[in-house]
């Protein structure tokens, strides 16, 4: 199921995201990610993002560190374009 796949990706990326320690105004960042078959991250591009340079860098590092992302159980569920919405505390 799609939900299970999203949950698995989310766990992988959340484990890989080392957030700068200091608290900052509510962060909301969109990242457009393209996957290769097999889950490797081919590209990650920041969209709308209200974070400072440090936050943006940590988000990009997280997405690439999480690569290769887990694959869905059913290969037909695979989608190559993902849109991450980083919104901690939401």
């Amino acid at each position: 199921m799609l939900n299970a796949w999203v949950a698995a990706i989310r766990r992988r990326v959340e484990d890989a995201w080392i957030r700068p320690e200091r608290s900052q105004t509510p962060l909301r960042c969109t990242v457009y990610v393209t996957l290769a078959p097999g889950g490797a991250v081919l590209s990650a591009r920041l969209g709308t993002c209200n974070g400072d340079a440090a936050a943006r860098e940590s988000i990009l590092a997280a997405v690439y560190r999480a690569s290769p992302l887990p694959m869905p159980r059913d290969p037909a569920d695979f989608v190559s374009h993902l849109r991450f919405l980083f919104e901690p505390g939401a």
Partner: protein
Amino acid sequence: MSVRRLSVPLVLLSAFALAHASLEVPITHGVHAATPIAVVPFARSVPGAPAGHLARVVADDLRRSGLFRLLPRADILQRPTHAAAVNFLNWQALGMDYLLIGRLEADPHGGWRVLFRLFNVPARRQIMAYVVHTGPGALHTAAHTISDLVFHRLTGIRGAFDTRIAFVAALPTLHGRRYALMVADYDGHDPRPIVRSHMPLLSPAWSPHGHRLAYVGYRDGHQILYVQTLATGRRTIIAARAGLDDTPAFSPGGRRLALTLTPPHGNAAVYLYDFASGKTVRVTESPNIATEPAWFPNGRHLAFTSDRGGSAQVYAKTLPSGRSHRLTFHDHYNADAVIGPHGKHLVCVTRLADELRLARMGLGGGWRLLTPGPLDDSPSLSPNGEMAVFTYLDGKRRGLATVALHGRAIVPIPLHLPPGASVGTPAWGPWTGGRSSGTQP
């Protein structure tokens, strides 16, 4: 219909399908942990130049901040000196998020040029490149400048590594104890005596731009307050009344000095000295002890230690004549507070089970012990509020260390003093403007 007209709606349809085919993944948590970074020993173009030392200073700076996890030098097996030589896969395999490489060159106009590059390892891209110019003999300062630039880029917080501390050293000699008021880089590099005395010196305090130091000295057996200009060495006496003057603190605007005055037959109280008028005004009204004043960054409130509640606690009052209210409630002894640069938290000395330790208290709530004791004392905050310098028991004497307010780094400051020497009352100086300059290449 022509093929061309058909193709337009087909293109629109594909884009529409693509947008819908983009799967949204919410990310609502991360890990609050130290950021992993590798600082590779810098290359040198001049044989014998201390390039490796530069990287060590930067790594030590980042480590002291508590916000970074440094790859141990023993695990650094490759030493790329150019961007093309960086093998991102290897650094990622070591768990690194960031990589710093650099190169030291002699500046044809005298002094040094230090080039460095910072990479986001998983993203495999360079995110920063700078050239730092510095005078001869100032390489250590250049390293601190690099630390400031990297720290700010990766945390969003202004770095405070190119700063200095003042402290008192007590040195045993054949003729008895001698005292020196010292100024050094915050990490203990290049300590220099500012004042020397046979009598005790105490409680240095920096003026807001770092040009002057207030401190307590003795003259004719009386404890008096001096303010000394660092550039000239000239000093003036602020207060030479009967009684003991202590714990000076410059106001954020530099126009006033808060101090503790203990009259010959009475309890200590907090006073304000105005530089322009030369007048001293009493601030705390209670007949109980009030001491150790500390300014809030807006210059309108003063924190101080008082025992009016039965034991030492930290209070605050609005100047000039607002009522005092109590700030600390944990346990039975809280003293020697310093206020963070945003006025939102304080660091103080707290006593737990007969041990003195540093604690951080959020003024809106929150309490965290910072150091383990048994005799941690005299905190002073870095100008960005991210670290504190304090005294601790080092064997039989007292030494200095820094503690990070976030993270867990507690690191002694090497001072290379003679055996038996002891130190006290450190004060962390303000930002004074870069002593070396950085430009993007």
